[in-house]
């Protein structure tokens, strides 16, 4: 689907980038702007820096080329080119995987994705905001999942460390929340208390050690 049309995007720091129509249309926002008639001139993106736009364009180009190659290996059905097709292709993969070429394509895509999203925290969050502003669903999903993976399974202290967040609770508030609301594991002293109350419920020494280790984070 060759198109001679080229659009020019301008970032907040004054740099300009030229992209094909097909690449531009990956962003719903840009697509709407073009369809509303603003494409003949520079398209200004005051919320996006050039560093981030480079990444975004990289994603869009990959998206388009991936789509093209998947059309070749599939039966050539008309697939909608909206941003959801990125996700739909991934979901539909099990059926199409019978074709070895398709399989290889999917593998390569996964690898590309992993490298693509392996970026600085700051870049990741800027990318997330850009994807939101430019309305690129697939990129938004990818970046959000990466951000969530940085939080998943971590204790609050680890999360604070990762994102450099200040603990602005007072000690009393913190204890309050930790005890009542946060579904936390017990502190060893709480376990002691419980053990005394349920007198015949003994923990073996190994279990007790394990419980203590699990709850070390609560002491911080």
């Amino acid at each position, binding site marked *: 689907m060759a198109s001679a049309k080229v659009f020019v995007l301008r970032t907040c720091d004054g740099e300009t980038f030229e992209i094909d129509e097909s690449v531009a249309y990956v962003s719903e926002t840009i697509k709407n702007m073009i369809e509303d008639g603003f494409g003949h001139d520079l398209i200004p993106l005051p919320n996006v820096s050039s560093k981030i736009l480079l990444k975004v364009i990289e994603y869009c180009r990959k998206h388009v080329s991936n789509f093209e190659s998947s059309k070749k290996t599939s039966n050539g059905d008309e697939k909608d080119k909206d941003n959801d097709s990125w996700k739909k292709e991934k979901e539909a993969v099990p059926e199409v995987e019978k074709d070895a070429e398709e399989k290889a394509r999917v593998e390569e895509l996964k690898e590309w994705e992993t490298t693509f999203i392996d970026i600085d*925290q*700051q870049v990741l*969050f800027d990318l*997330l*905001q850009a994807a*939101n502003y430019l309305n690129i669903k697939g990129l*938004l999903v990818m970046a*959000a*999942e990466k*951000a*969530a993976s940085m*939080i*998943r*399974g*971590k*204790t*609050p202290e680890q*999360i*604070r460390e990762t*994102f*450099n*967040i*200040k*603990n*602005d*609770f007072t*000690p009393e508030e*913190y204890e309050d*929340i*930790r*005890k*009542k*609301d*946060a*579904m*936390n594991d*017990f*502190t*060893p*002293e*709480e376990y002691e208390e*419980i053990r005394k*109350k*349920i007198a*015949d*419920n*003994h*923990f073996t020494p190994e*279990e007790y050690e394990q*419980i203590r280790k699990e709850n070390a984070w609560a*002491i*911080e």
Partner: protein
Amino acid sequence: MWFLSIHFWFLTDFMSRFKSVDDEIEESERISHKTDSEDSDPLLAMGDELATYILILLPLKTLFRSKCVSIRWNRLISDPLFACMYVNRQGGGSHTHMTTPTSFFHQLDFFAFDYGYLPPEDKRLNFLRLDNDAKVENDDNHVAVQQRVRSFDHNFFIVDSSNGLLLFARTGNQCRNYYVSNLLSKQWVGLPEPKRLYPYESAKLVCKYDDGYKPSLAQIKFEVLLFSRYQIMSSLFLEIFSSETGNWRMVVLHNYPSYLRTLHCHTLFNGAAYWLDVHADGAGRIAALDFSHLKMSSMPLRSVPYNEIAVMPEDCVQFIPLPASSDLPSNGFLGFSGGLLHYAESNLTNLHIWALSSGGLSQASQVAWSRKHSVSLQFMIDEHPDIFRLIANYRGEYDIGHKQHRFHFSPLAFHPSGLHLVLLNLPGMIVSYHIEKRKLEVVHHYNVQNFQHVPRFTVLSYNYPAWPTQFPSVKSGHASPLCSLERC
């Protein structure tokens, strides 16, 4: 020692905070958008909408722990709107407080005869999941519950489960202690001792959520119903504990037909209890008691010196006849599946399952049982020789013709969502039987000494709450001191 170190931490943190904080920074500024701490938090610098987008992907445990990260995070996660979005994120209805994959608790029945030969691990509480389509996020919950369950000793018996809350019992010296707990949020409450001690009793838990729209604001109320399994007099006595009052109260239904012999296999659904009455000569029927009557009707209180016993109106209980082709009510089993009352009977050769086609209590006069399924034990053996070989090994060849080699395959539970699954008790194992596919799958093994005397198990279905809610602290009653294990 831990205690001291916490205090030390508090002190140093407090002191350092005191030193570095300027006098003019006030409470409001601490949580305003302008302080440095806000700017350094990238998640919130993006705005609440995007932050929500990310937080919604987290599993429940991490999410709740993250409430401790900072005030903004806490506020964001505690927002009822966030709770709604979280519960809805898979696109599957928020009007239930439960997520769909169902798990089961199973344990030796609290009142099972003394199976002293069973090793402690066979008496313990077990937790299993049958559905294969359980989503990844729920694995976190599953692991959490598994961990909790592992720390129980074998004196703790599960009695009932309702809407995410569980009822446990423990025998003490000449008393029976009941506990209600929410395993996910690790809340426990010990109930005061009931007024009477019955030799064999059944307890049921009823848990209600007050507000259907906002999961995090929902108020939970629960009640525990206690009744004797063996009927001695022609009156039916019940004790009810309410979390609102923090006390037990006694209710009696007079003129309960005295030909009743035993009450067993209770089941609770939609505020009504159903149980099986079996007559001495083998006849049986199902009794249904609508508990909403107990609250709505104003009952005259008959004052007795230290007990208040409310008398139930006689139309509280309705009777549902058993299916015409049932012949062994003493081996009957009641349960709910897909919103319909099911009755199963197993004799030594066959298993029959019926479903009550009518709605329930209000249409008791138009009772119609439809036979849902029948299967013969021989068929099951032929289809799954490898499973039955495990049993047969115990005693030699299984022969359905020889009486001394027969055993029961008694039903333990129906899958509540109506997934055509029935859990059956075979000697030495609990299996799940799929009605449509006619397939058996072993779910759990246990030791058995004599395969004709198979211990009874309690199997209860359990759904994770989609959003864990605090359950109310139970008011301490004036009758007896409340032993509450706060945050056990």
